[in-house]
């Protein structure tokens, strides 16, 4: 135990790399074991987790509330889709990199006013941005597909992968697992970057700006640049998530990326836990599984999913959970886990203390 603790303390980056590697292998293993439906959920979870962890950096670390990240996801998704229109065999990494670049630029542009705006003005401006992006994409006409969206050839599963996982005769299963594998690996890289960034000099500067911008300036932190940097990274992550979504679904429609998606990202982030990597992972999983959980609830309660009540059940549950989280457990599920573990440890310590005192 002691040596592991020492290893983490002395070589934090290597420790994080190792942890990421172990988690990635475990998740890839899970993707191969589970059925094709769960593969699609794992892919969705990874994609949403990337977008949410980016938002977590912006809100949790730099203290700027954004309701505009659906707009960056749209920019990432459409960049990839437009690229795919012109390239029969588009390279995965190339299109993702391009999407990240374009959405980063958009993030810098939207981040610039953030140096002058505070609180509700900033939140409201990002909301307006999220609102404006889908009609803007529609207005671009055939270049971006108009309101009909864009379609391109589906992701091809490499033959080696299909045979490696023993699904050569089952293209559906192989394709879903391949999609999940790509999403998991990309998410792992993104989370590794984020874990290191949280502990970097820039990460600490962001926290300082969030807590006290005057003090930050006094110790030589460039406040304006730090705020814009947070927007840029957050937008890059959202763009990467959008690009992955487009690649896996091989189609994009502008109206998917409306304000509701932004609000969902924010809600899931708060539910999982603000400013934590674990919270973002939990949030991604909830995003992926919320539909099947709600349909479970529908079948338990006998509510017809096609009725007015059945159709809106998810919105009601979502809203209730958000309010309850904020009023009762503002640190989210990750914080709740932390609190429980602290509670258990203190009880164990108490017991130990008791048993010590009982011995003569």
């Amino acid at each position, binding site marked *: 135990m002691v040596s*592991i*603790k020492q290893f*983490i303390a002395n070589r934090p980056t290597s420790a994080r790399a190792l942890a990421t590697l172990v988690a990635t292998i475990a998740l890839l293993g899970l993707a*191969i074991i*589970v*059925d*094709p*439906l*769960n593969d*699609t959920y794992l892919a*969705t*979870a990874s994609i949403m987790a990337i977008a949410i962890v980016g938002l977590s950096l912006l809100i949790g670390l730099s203290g700027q509330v954004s309701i505009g990240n659906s707009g960056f996801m749209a920019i990432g998704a459409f960049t990839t889709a437009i690229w795919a229109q012109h390239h029969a065999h588009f390279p995965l990494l190339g299109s993702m990199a391009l999407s990240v670049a374009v959405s980063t630029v958009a993030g810098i542009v939207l981040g610039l006013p953030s140096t002058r705006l505070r609180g509700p003005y900033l939140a409201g401006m990002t909301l307006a941005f999220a609102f404006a992006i889908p*009609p803007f994409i*529609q207005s671009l006409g055939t270049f971006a597909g*108009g*309101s*009909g*969206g864009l*379609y391109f050839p589906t992701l091809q599963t490499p033959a080696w992968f299909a045979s490696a996982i023993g*699904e050569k005769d*089952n293209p*559906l*299963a192989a*394709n*879903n697992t391949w999609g999940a594998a790509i999403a998991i690996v990309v998410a792992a890289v993104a989370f590794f970057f984020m*874990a290191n960034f*949280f502990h970097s000099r820039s990460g600490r500067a962001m926290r300082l700006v969030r807590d006290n911008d005057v003090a930050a300036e006094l110790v030589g932190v460039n406040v304006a640049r730090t705020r814009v940097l947070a927007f840029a990274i957050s937008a890059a992550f959202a763009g990467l998530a959008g690009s992955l979504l487009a690649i896996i*679904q*091989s*189609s994009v*429609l*502008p*109206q*998917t990326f*409306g304000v*509701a*998606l932004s609000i*969902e990202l924010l809600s899931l982030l708060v539910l999982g836990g603000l400013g*934590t*990597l*674990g*919270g973002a992972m939990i949030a991604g999983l909830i*995003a992926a*599984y919320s*539909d*099947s*959980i*709600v349909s479970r609830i529908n079948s338990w309660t006998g509510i*017809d*999913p*096609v009725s007015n009540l059945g*159709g*809106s059940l*998810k*919105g009601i549950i979502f*809203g209730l959970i958000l309010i309850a989280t904020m009023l009762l457990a503002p640190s989210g*599920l990750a914080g*709740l*886990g*932390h609190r429980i573990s602290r509670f258990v440890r203190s009880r164990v310590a108490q017991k130990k203390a008791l048993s010590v005192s009982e011995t003569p």
Partner: protein
Amino acid sequence: MFRSPLRRASAIAAASALSVGLVSTGAVITSAGASGNDGVTSNSITIGATVPVTGIASPGYSDVAKAAKAAFKYVNSKSNGVNGRQINFLIKDDCYEVPGFGCTGTPSTYSQTQALLNTSGGLFATVGSLGTATQDSVRSLLDNNGVPQLFVNSGSSDWNNASQYPRLFGWQTDYIAEGKIFANYIKANFKNKSVGFIGQNDDFGANGLTGLNRGGLSIPAMGTGDSFSYEATAAVAGNPFGSMLSKMKNDKVAVVVLDSIPVATKNIIQDAHAIGFKPQFVISGVGSDPQTVNNKYEVGALSLTFLPPTSDAKNAWNVWTKKVLLADSADFPKFTAKSILTGNMQYGVGWAVTFMQALRAMGQNVTQSGIVNILETQGSSFATPAVTALKYSSSNHQGLQGGLMVKISSATATTSITKAGTVYSAGDGGTAAPTTTKYITSPVPSWLG
């Protein structure tokens, strides 16, 4: 932020515990995959559809899949399904790909179709999924998995592409054919009158306009002259229709053709009334159902239907459809023996019957390639509620190609204005003038119960 290793460990433990919990909620862990599973067993068959149950497109349209479900339920209980197989019809809400608060999650058509595809035991086909852009987005997904995509609820011509998508079928009369029939009618009945156009800014409006011009009218591109477009999915901002209609009024336009969904139809006719502009409206069958549009100024407008006029209380299919809906009080609690059918209800029952006909024609050997073959070879002879034949063949997957011109005769019903015993047929998608063919009234087969 993971300051201490213990804290990190607890968060990761929480995350992994949750993931295991969630994965097991989603479905049983198996490695077998869906291989060989096509949703068919000796006593059941599983099909599904993605439709807007909530959101902007749900008013009216949500009844379509419900009516189909009612028809399947009726046949399941009255005749023990088709050939002894109970039809299990799964409906998934895709919110028309416009998420809102009734529709959180990422309920895209894609993810909902994935969920259908991965139904345990497999999915035989999607039947009656709704929307052009939404269904375009899952064509490859379904095709790659060998699952037929049947009777897409849209009049786009995208469904008729048998070489690229051999298992994809439309059902209703397409927008080009509808436009040709409208053009033909307008030329005959409004000679030398000026014609205006307002269309949805996507395939719907574009195909409709193509049809009008192939039918011999000369309407300029949307956005020029008295031809306008509007966005269906963009949020309503400003009043786009007032100035369009005002310009048409100044230009003395006598006939206005609308390719609009019901919500937009309502706004347009109301705006026209408000500026005192009273042209003859000719509205696509997709956006004219009087009970959905629910506006008294629509009365007198013309439209096209490929189903019997809703005012025809004696039509055998209307009678049967009423029976079906009355038997399903869970989905249609307000429907009584005195209610008038809506076009949406007839439409859902229409393609549901077509599916059951195909299933019955296949006999005991039900396969995904079999149904494609049956539709191509026997589809044109199926008895369905439609007043014209399905034109399916190995090269034509569009479906119906004509219909009746009807008048919105009251706030609830439509009546035919086509010569008794005939319907218009648009023929192919080319410029050939529509012809009149026989009005088909197929009897309701007794096995439907």
